[in-house]
């Protein structure tokens, strides 16, 4: 994530890296509590991205309709364009409830945990690091 300045050097890989940066920025904005300015987004991302790079990505995402923005001071603050109808979410959930052979097509980040797994995992995370925020230990299931 460090050598981001050489975008002009590799055109093809540069385009791919731009796509990845878009994802990173989008993810950061969705995780945030409210609108974020380019400067704030930049602070959320690791490595030292150029301010202008972040600005470019934000305006490109805005052009694509993924973000909405409003004036804040001299610049803009961005937040994700919400999809309240959330047809997509429903479709994706139905994709996932299609049995194990369909699950194999989708590479899920984490598989389900058994009761023992859960305890074991908590121990592992605690012994590995003590800085795990307590809310993540047992997130309430909201549906």
């Amino acid at each position, binding site marked *: *994530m460090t050598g981001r300045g050489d975008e002009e050097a590799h055109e093809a890989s540069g385009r791919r890296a731009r*796509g*990845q940066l*878009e*994802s*990173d920025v*989008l*993810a*950061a904005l*969705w*995780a945030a509590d409210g609108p974020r300015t380019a400067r704030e987004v930049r602070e*959320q*991302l*690791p490595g030292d991205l150029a301010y202008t790079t972040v600005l470019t990505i934000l305006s490109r995402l805005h052009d*694509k*309709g*993924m973000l909405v923005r409003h004036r804040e001071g001299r610049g803009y603050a961005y937040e*994700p364009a*919400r*999809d309240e109808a*959330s047809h*997509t*979410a429903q*479709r*994706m*959930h139905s*994709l*996932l409830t*299609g049995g*194990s*052979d*369909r699950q*194999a*097509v*989708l*590479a*899920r*980040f*984490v*598989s*389900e*945990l*058994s009761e023992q*797994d*859960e305890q074991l*995992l*908590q121990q*592992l*995370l605690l012994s*590995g*690091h003590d800085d*795990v925020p307590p809310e*993540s*230990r*047992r*997130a*309430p*299931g*909201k*549906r």
Partner: protein
Amino acid sequence: MLISVYIPFLVTAALAVLAPPVAHRLPPRPAALALACAALVTAAGWAGSLALLAFTGVAQIPQIAEEGRWSVSALRSQDPVYAVVAAASTLVLAVCVVSLGVAAVRQGRHLLRARRECAELPGHTELAVLDDDVPLAFALPGAPGRIVVSRGMLRRLGDAERLALLAHERAHLSGRHHVFQSVWRLSAALNPLLRPVAVAGSFVLERWADEEAAERVGDRTVVARAVGRAALASAGASRPAALAATGGVVPRRVRALLAPPPARRSLPLLAGGLLLAVCCASLANAASDSDRMLDSAQWALCRAHADTTPVAARTAHDDALGRGPDGCGGAPDHPEHGERHF
């Protein structure tokens, strides 16, 4: 033929038992490649051996013998395979081929559906965020593939962990892990003995993506934490009882990430390669034996014909065998059979 035709079965069984524990200890990328090779070769070896065994039985059916112009009695006298074995092999082969066909259609349909969903997801970015509180994250293969993550998942992870998750799913897409999955699913459908290999394969792919994410983020514990927290968050959201049996995967991944990266080892890979070479060689040996058997059965029929009907001699490809002209002009012997003798 007597022994060599069974060797692919032994190799498959040995791999089914040995490959999963070994693969878990190797660096995941070479392990995944090795498991895919092993699955392909042993599935082919299994089908090939079954086909050879089945053929020895099928070839003794008079109608088929007449079509192929060989002598049933000559074949039976040389055949080292029991009729029961041949019949059982035919049955097993038929079941396996049907199961492969069903699995291929299903897998193809799932991949097509994933591809369609990819194209229909809103936006043209690599990442598609679901406006949903339920934590969820997966990679959807397609052209190009998309990373699908719910808002609920993103909000439960820290800044670095979020990047680890994205890097993990990106590794699945760029490594074309769905192709590996398809190879294992289909070879396990053809050969049920390979099911443990398919299970080990899925695990190794997750490890592969974890290791790539760790390299990307530059910190193994960040990835470990991302995996652990995501799993704990998802566990709160849904816990289908049916899937609890797959247990242990996430804790094993986290433990592997908290430990130093696995050392490169070439010995297990070499041993596996040797095993696969033995499998191929014995299958080739069995095939040439069976071919030779068939040829001599054809010759037996030719001789029988020659005794009764005097026909012009044919010497085209007899000399290599030193059998001399047998007067087999009546039987339209396939020239390629003659050339394969040695």
